[in-house]
Each structure stands twice: as C-alpha cells, then as structure tokens.
C-alpha cells in the first residue's frame, strides 16, 4: 500500500514556477454553487484527472496569475481559482 506521506498532493494554486506533475483531482463531489461552476469551467479548459501539468509563468505582482500548460493547451488562471485543482508532483 503506497505511503500517503510520500505523495505530496497539493493545490495547483500553491505550486511554484517550474512545477511539473499530473492532475489528481479537480473540485470535489461536494462542490456547490460557484465552486461547482468553476470545476466545470476548469474541466472544459482541459484540467482533468490524469492530465500532465506544468507551471510555466507567473505574474509580476503577487506571483499571480499563473500560466499553466495542461496537456497541449496553455491556460492562464488565478491562483485562487487554481486551488480547486489538486496535482501530484512528477517523479
């Protein structure tokens, strides 16, 4: 059984520039209202379980927003909204 402490799943909103990994989960079944809508929007833009993600760039002020490569699309998103995307680091 994999040791859960060795897989450091984290919200994409907290990842650092240069982060590489895969999407573990987007949103949660308990999401309601704005969060549920955000979850659907993120999926429509390609953020889906198993997708490869790479945090390419961040904004000048407050390291926000972030530019993320998700599979073959590059998407700009605010860190606050990216907290809905849980990612596993590579390797």
């Amino acid at each position, binding site marked *: 059984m994999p040791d859960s402490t060795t897989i450091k799943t984290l919200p994409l909103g907290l990842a650092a520039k240069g982060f590489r990994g895969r999407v573990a989960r987007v949103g949660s079944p308990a999401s309601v209202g704005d969060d549920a809508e955000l979850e*659907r*929007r993120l999926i429509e*833009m390609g953020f889906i379980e198993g997708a490869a993600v790479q945090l*390419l*760039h961040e*904004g*000048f002020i407050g390291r926000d927003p972030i530019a993320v490569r998700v599979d*073959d699309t590059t998407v*700009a998103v605010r860190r606050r*909204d990216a907290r809905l995307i849980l990612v596993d680091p590579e390797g």
Partner: protein
Amino acid sequence: MSATATPVIALVGCPNSGKTALFNALTGSRQKVANYPGVTVERRAGAFVTAAGRRIQVLDLPGTYSLRARSPDEAVTRDVVLGRFVGEMPPDALLVVADATNLRLALRLVLELKHTGRTLILAVNMIDIARRQGAEIDLKRLESELGVPVVATVAVRKGGIADLLGQIDRTIDRHAPQAPADWHEPNADELRATHHEAERILKACLARPADASVTARIDQVLLHPVAGILILLALLFLIFQAVFTWAQPAMDLIKNGFDALAGVVDATLPKGMLHSLITDGIIAGVGSVLVFLPQILLLFFFIILLEDSGYMARAAFLMDRIMGGAGLHGRAFIPLLSSFACAIPGIMATRVIDNRRDRLTTILVAPLMTCSARIPVYTLIISAFVPARTVWAGMQLQGLVMFALYAIGILSALTVAFVLKRLVWPHDADPFLLELPGYKLPSVQNLVFGLWQRTTIFLRRAGTIIFALMVVIWFLSSVPGAPPEATEPAINYSIAGIVGHWLAPLLAPIGFNWQIAIALIPGLAAREVAVAALGTVYAIADQGEAAKSALGPVLAANWSLPTALALLAWYIFAPQCVATLGVIRRETNSWRWPAVAFLYMITLAYLAAFATYHISAALLS
C-alpha cells in the same frame, strides 16, 4: 433540408481556432455584420457559392469551448445551434473549426455537438502549422472514430479550402435527416467522460503531436516578470504614440478637406439659413465623423495584429493584477490608453473584453480619461487665469495645473470603475480563465479585412447617430436666426440662447454665467467646440487661433477666478461630446447606457464645479 431554400451552415469552434479566418475565406466580401436583436453580440453572416454552383448562407457564431453558455456570446451560439434562437433559422449543418495543433478541446466539442442532432463537418484548420511543427494526424481514422466527415483546411492560404467546399457539396447532397437531439447541459462527470473519450480518439489518430517549443521559448521572454512587462509597456507606448501623434496629419488632412469644401459652398451660396445648414450643419457634421477614422484605423491595426498573433492574451495576463486592483479587466488597458487620445476609438476597442460587465465598466469610464479634445479648453482657461509663475524648484504653475487636471481625470476613471465593480456589480462569478494560444504570423488578408469591417461598422452605425446629433446641435444653435436689428451675437436668439438663459439660474450656484450656459449647448458637439462657442457668445470676430488669443483676455476681464476653476472642474467630468454617446449607443446596442453615462457624468461635473467654485471663492476672499 428543403430543396429550394438556401442551406444555412453555422461555424462553431473554440476561440483561436481560426474560425473567423475561415469565414472570411468562404465569404470574401459578401459579409454583413449587425447585432443580434436585443443583445450586444455581433451577428456575422455571409454567403458563398460551392464548386457545384450551389449558394450557401453561412453564420459565424461566437467562439465557445462548449455549449454550456457562460456569457451572452456563448448563449447566442448555444441557442442558434439548438435552433432555439427566435428569428434565426436553425442551421442545416454545423461546420466545426478546430486548431490542428490543439485538437483535444475541439474533439470534445465535436462529441458534445453530436448530441444536438445536427449534421456536422469538422474542419481541421491551420493544418500547415501543425505539419510544420511535426504533427502527424490520421484524418481518415479521425473521420471513422468521430463518425463525422473531416477535412483539412488552411484558411489563410489561397486554395486552402478547396477540399472543404467539395465536402460541403457532398454533405448537402446526402440530404441526411437530422438525428434526434438529446443535448442537455452536461454536469462535471459527463464533461469528464466526454473529455476522456476525446483523449482516446486523439491518441488513436495523432501519430506525433505538434511541437510547441517555439511558442514556449518566445513566452520565456514575453511572459518574463520583468522583461515581459517592459516589452508590454514599450508596445503600449507605441500604440499610444500612433493614436495620439501619427494619426494627426491624416486627421488634419480630413479637416482641411472639409474646410475647403465649406469654402466652396461659401463661394457659391449666399449667406443665410441654407448656407449655414450646409456648411455648419451637414459638412461639419460629416467631417466630424470622418475625422475619427485615422485614429480608429491605427488603433485597430494594432489590436488585430496583437489578437491574430496571439500576443493579446499575454498582455491580458501581464495586466490582470494591476487592472484587477482598480476593478478593471486586464484587457481594458488598451481601450483606456486610447481614450487619452480620444474616447471614440477607445470605446470601440472595448470589444476585446469578453466579459460583459467588465466591458460596460470600461465603456462607462473611458470618457473620463483626459482626452485630447479637452486640451484646448484647459489651455484657454489656464493661460487666461493661471499666472505664468514658477513654483517649487523650477516647475511652471501652468504646467502643474495641466498635470493636475490630467491626473484627476485618470483617478476619477479608476475610482468610478472601482465603485462600479465593488458596489454596483459586486457578485461577478466570472473566473479569469484564458487560453494562451500558440504564436502565429498574422495574415495580411485578415488584417485588411478586419480594418475594412471596423470602418464600415463605424461609419454606418455610429457615424449616422453622430451625424444626426451634430445636425440637431447645429439646429439648436442657429435657429431662429438673429432679427435684422440685432445688437447681440446671433446665437443669443437661437434655441440654444433661449435654453442657455433659462439654464443660467441653475448654473449660477456653480459660478457659471449665462454666456457659459449658452456656450455649453453647442459645446455638446465636442469638447474643443467650447472654445469656438465661447468666442461666438462673446462676439469675438476673429477666427481660429487668433480667436483663442483674443478670447483669453476677454474671459479674464469678465470671469472671476473661481468661475474659471469651476469650468475646468466641469470639463473634467462633463459629457460634452455627443460622438462619445453615439459610439456608446452603437457598442451597447441600447440607449440605456449612453443615458447612464450622460447622467452620471453631468452629476459628477455639477458636484465638482460646485465644490471648486465655493471652495476657491472661500479661499480667495
């Protein structure tokens, strides 16, 4: 599909798929741009003839990632596709346009569209770029996996849509019945399932993915936290220079041209009401519309270049944090910057903002940015009333006052935007989620096309409103004419004169006399007209530049300093420009927003003038 009616094809696709370029390639100049009734969404329709000689009507729908509508634009796409849009024929077929270098999201859209029951054709566009980047796409396999005809296209190249035209003929010949429609708004899990299916298909058909490293390498520089911002600022400065300075010679040319035309009328018609109608009403009215064209063309030249190349999304990314703090959208930077030259092209440029409320906010505050038309008014009053003294280590007092006026204009725009965002429209659940497309070389064809479209839209829609309003203002200022034994300037006898005298007591609390009250009415035509209007009211016989230098001392002798300062404060806010209102009407497709703009600006103007007048009177006594 009826055998006699012209078939209608609707173009659907994700943003950045080159859909509009494909639409241009299909329809050429046979396009018509209008508004869908009741909304601010543009309706782009056109027609073309296939190789078999069949005439097809085509509708370019707003780009969307899915039929789940999150904005008025996407709602139009959804409703037209589903045949729900009142007044719009349900399309006979959907042409889905996909970016060959980014098929994943497009394939998901195709799978979703299959549920609508409409006949589909998939155009894999920009196939040349994908092949150049090393991608190998098995189009036959894609066709069999999707169950939809698939054609490769290169919209910007001649002959690049030949295969598509052939496929359209074949599809219409088949007369396939519409499949039953079972589309409903997908929930998160259904979206996931469709996405996984799209991924499976893509993996089966994409032997080698496109290499996106060129874009990534360019972004290392353009999205660099320091270099990126500096490059953006340099670019914005370039745009500002273009609209502010480079457009000037062309604008002068147009103005001189119309003055010459007026001169011709002068020489042929005797002075009188007809002469005045033609020179001061019609010629001046048309001239005042056409004079905006150089700025509009230059501004949209840059905007189309930035959009087509893919850089606009990067600019929005870099500006997001700064603009967000002031309650504005990242893309509002270019419209607001242009408004320093003139709010007309600035307001037209707000179309780069997709979010409706952000766009409205920007449209409403753009007129507050200190536009170049205010400069003649500011210069006149400052040179007449502010002493040419040096204060504080070599700074000219007159220059300081001018700078202060500029600064107050900008600050007021940011404040109103903040208030609108936080108080009037606080709950805006529109997350910032922007695709950064791969960099592409803009096509000259598209650029010329886009400029041509913007020009005709401006002239036909905004131009007609502006012209009508100019004629109305002429009428108010010239009719009825002065009686033969008149001792005062003719304007006193006109409707404007009567209204001005009637308004004078209302404006007395802010220190305005009846001459100012009258001058403000023709001054509604444009801000710089106030100078000429004051000249007329004070019966300055000179014209042009000489009038300005003659007017200054007359004002200095007749007005108190608080009155002059109050007029300056008034001009920071007042909506003394019907052209602005005309463009707001065109861009928002209703009279409500120009009315809102007029009312809030005139209220702010009155309050500012009131405060300035009384405070300065108190300080000086």
